[in-house]
């Protein structure tokens, strides 16, 4: 007589063994889980996918009442029309947003890197107190200091300029950026620096040459956050800009929505929304890891 393998042991009277039952149950649960996940994923993706598809419809179809689910014909006409709306086209406001985002990214990177390096490597009196001060500003919501910021920008004649708006954004990126860069620099062993110093590098060229490469993940994270936050910000952009030509994309689209140019132009609104969403999605999909790391690092220390 040969012993049957444990799993295939014949059960009495056509029933299944305990183990087989458990296995079936586990598989059923797994399928149920995938089913739930798929349904939820479809619901979550629906608004994004629908708006993307809609922007590829013919302009007349995009405005159909009632709307159609899928485009009958795929055209890019809505995008070629981006230049033709408002005072100088939706595209002009995309440019405004892009300029503000670019200044914010560069400014936050330079200042966070320098600040983070300072906090990580140099000792100076009051360093800890200063660092705690930087961190505690994370707790002050910018909504509560908008009024004086506005008064200050007016006084420096920076209100209604894209640079002024970018400066405000840089400020709100800095506490997080400095904190993140400090941690990145602290993670680099001091020995590497000392070795380079012996080879005759000065402190600043040292920072340039090798440290930057070592803290690249931190830099990428700061840059993504600076971009996404400044590209998406609404309230400050609404308050600090009064010249309609200088409105960033979200503020401009809100204007379109309220029908200030006559009736609500859904074509311009739809194309604008898609253009506003797209860079963030792309950036996130490409650099997900850095974004999530920044989120968890930032939140846990909050």
């Amino acid at each position: 007589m040969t012993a049957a393998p444990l799993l295939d042991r014949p059960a009495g009277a056509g029933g299944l063994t305990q183990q087989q039952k458990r296995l079936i149950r586990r598989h059923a649960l797994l399928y149920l889980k995938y089913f739930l996940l798929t349904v939820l994923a479809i619901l979550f993706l629906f608004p994004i996918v629908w708006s993307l598809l809609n922007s590829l419809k013919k302009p007349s179809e995009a405005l159909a009442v009632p709307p159609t689910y899928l485009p009958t014909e795929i055209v890019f006409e809505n995008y070629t029309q981006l230049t033709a709306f408002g005072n100088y086209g939706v595209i002009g406001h995309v440019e405004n947003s892009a300029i503000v985002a670019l200044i914010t990214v560069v400014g936050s990177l330079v200042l966070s890197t320098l600040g983070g390096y300072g906090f990580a490597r140099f000792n100076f009196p009051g360093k800890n107190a200063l660092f705690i001060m930087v961190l505690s500003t994370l707790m002050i919501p910018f909504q509560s200091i908008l009024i004086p910021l506005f008064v200050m920008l007016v006084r420096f004649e920076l209100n209604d300029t894209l640079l002024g708006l970018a400066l405000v954004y840089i400020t709100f990126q800095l506490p997080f950026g400095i904190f993140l860069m400090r941690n990145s620099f602290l993670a680099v062993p001091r020995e590497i620096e000392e070795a380079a110093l012996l080879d005759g590098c000065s402190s600043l060229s040292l920072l340039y040459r090798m440290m930057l490469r070592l803290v690249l993940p931190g830099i990428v994270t700061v840059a993504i956050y600076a971009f996404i936050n400044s590209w998406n910000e609404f309230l400050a952009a609404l308050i600090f800009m009064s010249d309609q030509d200088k409105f960033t994309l979200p503020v401009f689209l809100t204007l379109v929505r309220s029908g200030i140019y006559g009736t609500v132009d859904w074509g311009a609104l739809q194309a604008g929304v898609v253009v506003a969403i797209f860079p963030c999605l792309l950036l996130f999909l490409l650099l997900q890891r850095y974004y999530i790391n920044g989120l968890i690092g930032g939140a846990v220390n909050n």
Partner: protein
Amino acid sequence: MLFVTVFFIIPLAMTLFMSFHDWPLIGEQSWIGATNYTELASDRQYLKSLDFTFRYTILVTPPIFILGFILASLVRHNIRFIGVFRTVFFLPVVIGLGVSSLLWVWMLDQRVGIFNKILLDLHWIAKPQLFLAKPATAMNVIILSVVWKTVGFTMILLLAGLQSIPDELYESADVDGAGYFRKLFYITLPLMRRTIALALILSVIGSVLAFDQFYIITRGGPRNSTISIVYWIFNNSFTYWKMGYGAAMSIVLLGILVALSSIQYYLLRERY
């Protein structure tokens, strides 16, 4: 460092300073003592907006948390394709609240919106609805849009918390024959107390500061029923240009937030 001082400390002091003044955009500002604050107490719309903001916070926080927890539990283990699902649930987070609000305005529109189309095709409604015309439905669709946009953030926080619980605990519970809910209430939830507190507080603070969705989706309506605190500060300061009055309201808002942060600090203490 100078930057931080200039843009945070000075404005903070200035907010306080301005809150004791009559401060119009053009013309002389004058010291009026605590008048702005006493005026606040009799400002019906201000009290209404406080009440509205708290009601909104209480309504929006549970769905975000519960759905966030369900999503985190579903994507917890590294089964095949799970990364795709995590990404999909997180995607709306990187879209700006302002832009996502515009997207929802469009989807909810009575003429070109897809929502009415779907509900009509499903025969759930007989004719296109004006979702934003009634206070109750307006609130519900705003909550729906905010849950969609922010739940991924809560999911990631809770996921990090879930993954820090050692598997051995569940294995020994299995040996003891504990069911799903016993494990949930005796292992998962107690060990995640700090993460849960963090997720809740961040979502509460976000809701107290809500502005974009009310400005864009409902424009404060119907009949001024969806004006949040920040919205009312915005109106007073930058529409009526009563900046001293707005500053006084900002100080009250700041007080509320400091109180919330203290609760957070208290809950996150090392005691657990």
